[in-house]
């Protein structure tokens, strides 16, 4: 696993922050926006120049922040999995992003035609560019693709990776996502009136909306054959994807899509709801998501297991959220602990669900992690103890 987000630049940083209940939400400082004082974000306090240096890139490169964050995370993941040669087994890459090269496009849109410095970012605009850059940086020559289903993207990347290994198409696949903060998404969510000016409070009765975040997060899936004698961090035991088919941005009141995605994942994992020890919820802290997700959880689980949303740590990292939270879920299995749902005070009256608000030890064999996005895209992953 490899990850960079607002709560740290490595997996170990994340473990430390999560165990210490330390949020990474702050005021934006890497770039100027009119909304700087009216929103809180999960920003990585590293400039593009610092990230480029860490990757030893030449000065005139055209890596967007999306590609930079992705490379940093993949670098750590390859090192942790002890992979120095990507050619000894058929290795693929499936990345997820919503903004693609937008962080550079929004800067240069007015002068693409006139400035030499801007021109090099025309070809980096499309969503596949960051994945191509990551693949080229690490010499990945086999299957490379990118998924963009809004905020469920990275979960779908993990799903496809698992399917490619199951079918024998690949022996090893690097799966995850990368999304930087940019004005495009800040203004988009602002126009939907769902950004909070405080640190977000998932599942709280008085939640005011979400905090956007940024992250690069990748996991390496390997077949038994490619794994050899390496230790297994966790198993992808189930996955499910369903569509709410209700509204372009809003989730249905009873959370049909979420319910179906969780149900499918359990079925594939051959598990019953009572086998789930911890739910890492999508929990964005918007009025709509949290009530819809709560309703779906209550429908599926007669006894709701321990659950929390970790969005108040990292912010909502959009396409990357599914990979960030898959890593957090694996850390929960390793630590045998449920990470807290920060800032929760009062349950939503009509639903009454109460998340874990403090770090608690628990026996965790199976974690269910949810990620939902615009367009009704709902995806669920089940990660199990090795």
């Amino acid at each position: 696993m490899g990850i960079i987000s607002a709560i740290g630049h490595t997996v170990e940083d994340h473990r430390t922050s999560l165990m210490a209940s330390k949020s990474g939400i702050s005021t934006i400082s890497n770039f100027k926006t009119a909304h700087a004082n009216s929103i809180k974000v999960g920003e990585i306090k590293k400039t593009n120049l610092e990230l480029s240096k860490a990757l030893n890139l030449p000065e005139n490169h055209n890596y967007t922040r999306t590609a930079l964050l992705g490379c940093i995370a993949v670098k750590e993941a390859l090192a942790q999995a002890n992979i120095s040669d990507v050619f000894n087994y058929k290795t693929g890459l499936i990345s997820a992003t919503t903004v693609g090269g937008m962080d550079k496009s929004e800067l240069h849109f007015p002068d693409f035609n006139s400035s030499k410095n801007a021109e090099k970012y025309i070809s980096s605009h499309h969503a596949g560019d960051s994945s191509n850059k990551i693949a080229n940086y690490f010499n990945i020559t086999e299957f490379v693709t990118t998924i963009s289903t809004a905020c469920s993207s990275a979960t779908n990347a993990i799903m496809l990776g698992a399917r490619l290994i199951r079918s024998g198409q690949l022996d090893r696949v690097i799966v995850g996502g990368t999304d930087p903060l940019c004005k495009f998404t800040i203004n988009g969510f602002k126009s939907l009136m769902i950004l909070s000016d405080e640190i977000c409070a998932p599942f709280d009765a008085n939640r005011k909306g979400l905090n956007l975040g940024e992250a690069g997060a990748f996991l390496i899936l390997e077949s038994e054959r490619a794994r050899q004698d390496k230790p297994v961090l966790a198993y992808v035991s189930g996955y499910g994807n369903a569509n709410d088919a209700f509204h372009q941005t809003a989730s249905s009141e009873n959370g049909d899509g979420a319910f179906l995605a969780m149900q499918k994942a359990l079925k594939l994992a051959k598990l019953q709801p009572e086998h789930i020890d911890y739910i890492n919820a999508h929990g964005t802290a918007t009025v709509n998501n949290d009530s819809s997700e709560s309703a779906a959880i209550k429908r599926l689980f007669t006894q709701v297991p321990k659950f929390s949303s970790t969005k108040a740590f990292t912010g909502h990292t959009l396409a990357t959220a599914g990979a960030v939270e898959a890593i957090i879920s694996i850390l929960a299995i390793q630590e045998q602990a449920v990470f807290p749902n920060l800032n929760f005070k009062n349950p939503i009256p009509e639903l009454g669900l109460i998340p874990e608000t403090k770090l608690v030890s628990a026996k965790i064999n199976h974690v269910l992690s949810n990620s939902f996005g615009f367009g009704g895209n709902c995806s669920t992953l089940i990660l199990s103890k090795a």
Partner: protein
Amino acid sequence: MSLQLELKEKIIELLNLEDIAVEDIDNSDALFGDGLGLDSIDALELIVMLDKDYGIKLTNPNDGKAIFQSIDVLANYIKTHRTK
């Protein structure tokens, strides 16, 4: 032009209601749900219109529900609260 008519023209243009004419909207017709069939995204468009054209700022999208009931209700609200 009456404020009602002005609002109808704005709504048709803003929300791309190509097949609907000003005459098709009654002053007391429901704009959302069973009436004109507008949804939550349209409500957000109308909130920005209130701010931009009449200097009325709504911070909670839920407040829109009461204000956007019909053209008449909306016009009355604007008359009382407009700052420009």
